[in-house]
């Protein structure tokens, strides 16, 4: 087996992505559905430990290293690529699928990378692939948002590369492993990872760019960038206390902005930051329970967020509308999409018997073990807030609320199949979490289903629901957006640039005027001397020639006789 596993399994997805646009029809469909399954099989052929090494510039790179954590993330990435591919086949855009496969393949590459250089290479390919997925949204807004997205991620890549270069310089090793925050280089590595996780202050790229992608594009985007960042943080900075506070900020940022948001897919985009916040908090708490919680939460979150975005995407596909103010009452004609979307909404809210219930509580459970009362209280309030902003708000405003008068057709068959696939996984993991627990990085002795836990969780969620309906008038959506940190580069920086541009344009205009004046003077001079009326261009009368010749001859004669 060593021959096959020496090549990073993610490269198979990348290769398939590059091949996809060249194929047509059923062959293309087959590739989209088969390659993720084969990649998953390959991932599970990779044994624990370093499988292959490459020596480059005196450093030993480890393109493939099997770890429990890496395998867990690679597994869910492959499942996601399969389900997302199935969904995307309903509105087949070969270029988007190609970009998505390159993107997901490099994400799988990150999870099996044994060293920092391999990780960085796949990291950068991810940035390119995901930008192409955003651009495949097709609109002018998608192009502009994609460019902003790319700029931020290239900046993150540079920060990460600078950190890795400093780390290699200081330690002489490219090994990927736990790091302590004791050098500027390591802070840069942390910053590079956190940028991709959607941490403050640069988190606005996520709700800015993702909702501009196509329905299927955003499904892919939701899964890989933020979760590879969670994976990388789990490997390198587990237990760094700073991450608890960064994570809590993200959790509440996501809730507050989602409460204020009108665009259904931006609500879900803010909700990604919120959910990644739970994971980052878990990583910061450290310890087997919290890290298991963060890892399993990443796993289940990919599935239910994909499901939520698939149902939102189906609505967008059917109606062409994305704002809550334009939507409502769609349960009448899209009951399957609505039901499956609600399964996703219940899962993200961590209702008993869904996947969120068996994973999220491990994180808050770790906060009780550590006697961190305020962290625990904040996480509990945040869990209530998740139900508020994603669990009820999304389905309520899209499928119920008022009757918008829209009577769209139910989602296409392939979309329904993909949503059903993820809904089954969401409930399946919720009912039978043992297979997931068996894959976690540390041994699990956690029992999610105790009477205490079920009752308290139901109280927390259902009374949040009561608060939602009690406060419904305050939650009515309007045609508004909420300013975020991206204001500083979209308006403030561009205003500064504009200011200097005005001045420099004026100077340029002055210089141009001067140059023009000079050129005009030069041309006028030329004209005066060499133009048709110019003194040097005048045709001389023959008479004056003869006269001058006569004068010269006379002068010669005079000189001769002297």
């Amino acid at each position, binding site marked *: 087996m060593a021959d096959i596993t020496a090549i990073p399994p993610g490269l198979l997805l990348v290769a398939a992505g590059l091949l996809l646009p060249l194929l047509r029809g059923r062959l293309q469909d087959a590739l989209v559905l088969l390659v993720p399954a084969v990649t998953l099989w390959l991932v599970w052929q990779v044994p624990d430990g370093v499988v292959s090494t490459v020596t480059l510039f005196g450093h030993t790179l480890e393109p493939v290293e099997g770890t429990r954590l890496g395998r867990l993330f690679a597994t869910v990435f492959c499942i996601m690529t399969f389900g997302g591919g199935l969904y995307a086949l309903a509105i087949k855009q070969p270029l988007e699928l190609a970009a998505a496969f390159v993107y997901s393949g490099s994400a799988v590459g990150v999870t099996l990378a044994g060293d920092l250089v391999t990780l960085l290479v796949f990291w950068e390919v991810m940035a390119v692939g995901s930008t192409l997925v955003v651009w495949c949204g097709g609109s002018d807004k998608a192009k502009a948002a994609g460019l902003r997205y790319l700029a931020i991620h290239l900046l993150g890549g540079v920060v990460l590369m600078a950190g890795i270069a400093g780390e290699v310089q200081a330690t002489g090793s490219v090994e990927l492993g736990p790091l302590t925050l004791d050098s500027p280089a390591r802070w840069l590595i942390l910053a590079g990872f956190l940028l991709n996780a959607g941490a403050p202050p640069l988190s606005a790229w996520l709700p800015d760019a993702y909702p501009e992608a196509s329905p299927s594009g955003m499904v892919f985007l939701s899964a890989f960038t933020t979760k590879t960042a969670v994976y990388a943080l789990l490997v390198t900075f587990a237990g760094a206390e700073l991450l608890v506070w960064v994570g809590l900020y993200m959790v*509440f940022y996501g*809730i*507050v902005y989602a*409460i*204020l948001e*009108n665009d259904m897919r931006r609500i879900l985009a803010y909700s990604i930051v919120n959910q990644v916040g739970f994971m980052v908090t878990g990583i910061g708490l450290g310890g087997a329970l919290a890290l298991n919680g963060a890892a399993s939460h990443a796993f289940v979150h990919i599935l239910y967020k994909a499901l939520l975005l698939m149902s939102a995407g189906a609505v967008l596909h059917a109606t062409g509308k994305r*704002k809550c103010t334009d939507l409502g*009452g769609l*349960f*009448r004609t899209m009951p399957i999409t609505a039901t499956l979307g609600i399964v996703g909404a219940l899962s993200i809210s961590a209702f008993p018997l869904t996947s969120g219930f068996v994973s999220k509580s491990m994180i808050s459970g770790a906060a*009780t073990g550590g*006697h961190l*009362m305020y962290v*625990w*209280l904040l996480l*509990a*309030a945040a869990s*209530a*807030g998740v139900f*508020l902003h994603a669990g009820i708000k999304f389905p309520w405003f899209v499928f119920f609320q008022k*009757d918008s008068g829209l009577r769209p057709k139910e989602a296409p068959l392939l979309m329904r199949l993909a949503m059903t696939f993820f809904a089954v996984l969401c409930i399946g993991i919720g009912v039978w979490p043992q297979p997931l627990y068996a894959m976690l990085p540390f041994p699990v002795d956690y029992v999610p289903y105790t*009477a*205490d836990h079920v*009752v*308290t*969780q*139901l*109280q*927390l*969620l*259902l*009374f*949040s*629901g*009561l*608060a*939602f309906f*009690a*406060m419904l008038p*305050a*939650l009515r959506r309007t*045609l*508004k*957006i*909420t*300013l*975020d940190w991206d204001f500083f580069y*979209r*308006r403030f920086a561009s205003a500064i640039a504009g200011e200097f541009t005005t001045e420099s344009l004026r100077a340029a205009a002055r210089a141009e005027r001067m140059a023009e004046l000079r050129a005009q003077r030069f041309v006028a001079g030329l004209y005066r001397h060499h133009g048709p009326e110019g003194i040097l261009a005048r045709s001389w009368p023959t008479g004056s020639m003869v006269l001058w010749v006569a004068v010269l001859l006379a002068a010669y004669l005079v000189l001769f006789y002297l």
Partner: protein
Amino acid sequence: MEDYWLVRPRAGRILWGVFAAILAATVLAELLIERHAHFGIDGIFAFNAWYGFGGCIVLIVFSKALGAMLKRTDTFYDG
């Protein structure tokens, strides 16, 4: 033609009644089970119920206050 049963006023009243009954049931269920409080505060009766309700109210009010400052028309960045 009459609209879907779910949106008739009568269905709304029934749903509110069912919801209220479930809320009461989750609170009363606490009497039947053994609670494990980790801190002092979460040992209070029906802690999660009022904490979830209150927490959400606070979150909504805070969001509205922040929104009053930070909200702009959704064409703010266009053009």
